[in-house]
């Protein structure tokens, strides 16, 4: 009966490409590929009720106060300053390489891989902003402080391990460097000095 000669006709697949294109364009428009970058911070734990007035006392030489007022003017320690100076001042303060009396005290500390070193363990950098301060200047100060830490860590990585960048070191080395230069930026509660417009 001629049944043997019947064949299933091949499916016309020429429009699959169009369908795929439509899907592709849909996904291109509906999704975003922005890689989010930013400055990571860890907030301190909330204060407990009974601990409120039990503030930690820090020696004056161990604190670097950075204050920003509502007009976005900066003060480092006791003098007016501007944003470009922060990094150098912070580096000088954190490292205290010359062991000066008005900069943070250096204390012996045993660090893995590095042995016993004199480190400014107790230093604190406190950034205090007014309620009316603009966010961008606060951010730039934070950015400059992180830059200061990163440069010091890079320098130490080069001196100790001969590696140009902290980021290229092994995990143990990074840990040692982090212990040498711990990041201590305090998130001080804001105060209202000036009137907010």
């Amino acid at each position, binding site marked *: 009966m001629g049944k043997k000669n019947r064949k299933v006709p091949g499916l016309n697949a020429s429009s699959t490409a169009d369908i795929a294109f439509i899907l592709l364009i849909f996904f291109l428009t509906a999704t975003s590929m922005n890689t989010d970058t930013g400055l990571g911070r860890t*907030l301190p734990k909330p204060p407990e009720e009974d601990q409120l007035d039990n503030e930690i006392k820090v020696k004056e030489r161990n604190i670097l106060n950075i204050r920003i007022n509502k007009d976005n003017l900066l003060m480092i320690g006791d003098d007016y300053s501007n944003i470009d100076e922060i990094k150098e001042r912070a580096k000088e303060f954190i490292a205290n390489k010359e062991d000066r009396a008005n900069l943070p005290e250096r204390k012996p500390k045993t660090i893995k891989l590095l042995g016993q070193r004199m480190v400014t363990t107790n230093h604190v950098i406190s950034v205090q902003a007014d309620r009316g301060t603009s966010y961008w200047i606060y951010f730039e100060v934070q950015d400059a402080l992180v830059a200061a830490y990163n440069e010091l860590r890079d320098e130490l990585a080069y001196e100790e391990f001969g590696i140009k960048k902290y980021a290229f070191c092994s995990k143990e080395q990074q840990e040692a460097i982090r212990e040498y230069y711990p990041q201590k930026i305090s998130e001080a509660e804001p105060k209202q000095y000036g009137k907010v417009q």
Partner: protein
Amino acid sequence: MSRFNKNGSREMPELNTSSLPDLIFTILFFFMMVTSMREETLKVKYTIPSGTQLEKLARKSCTSYIHIGKPTDALISQYGSGTRIQLNDKYAETHEVYDFVYADRAELPEVDKPFYTISLKCDKETPMGIITDVKQVLRKAYALKIVYSASKAQE
């Protein structure tokens, strides 16, 4: 000498396009993997500050976003020009951040909870007071990892 015969009716062979769909599908899957859905419509406009020491956000899936800025031009007549906080799809007050954080964190699987991060996308001109208020609420909610979202500065 048929080899040099020029008067034969030669035709261009048709291009085989049967693998075209596969190609397009490959591109499609690539885009599906590297991109993420736009989740919310922005109701505030902001320009994030720029910095030099930025890190990439490690895990996008365990990140919540808080947008702070002024209402967009279309909404400014309705809501005024004061700085607003946007959570998910609507404006919110500072204290609502607390519930937002708890609700968002509860959706994460247990292993991801330590990596829960808040990304603060704030306008450059935002007064610090608002941001600090938000930060205090985040502290209370034990969402201690935050990221100040910023773009890379051009040098």
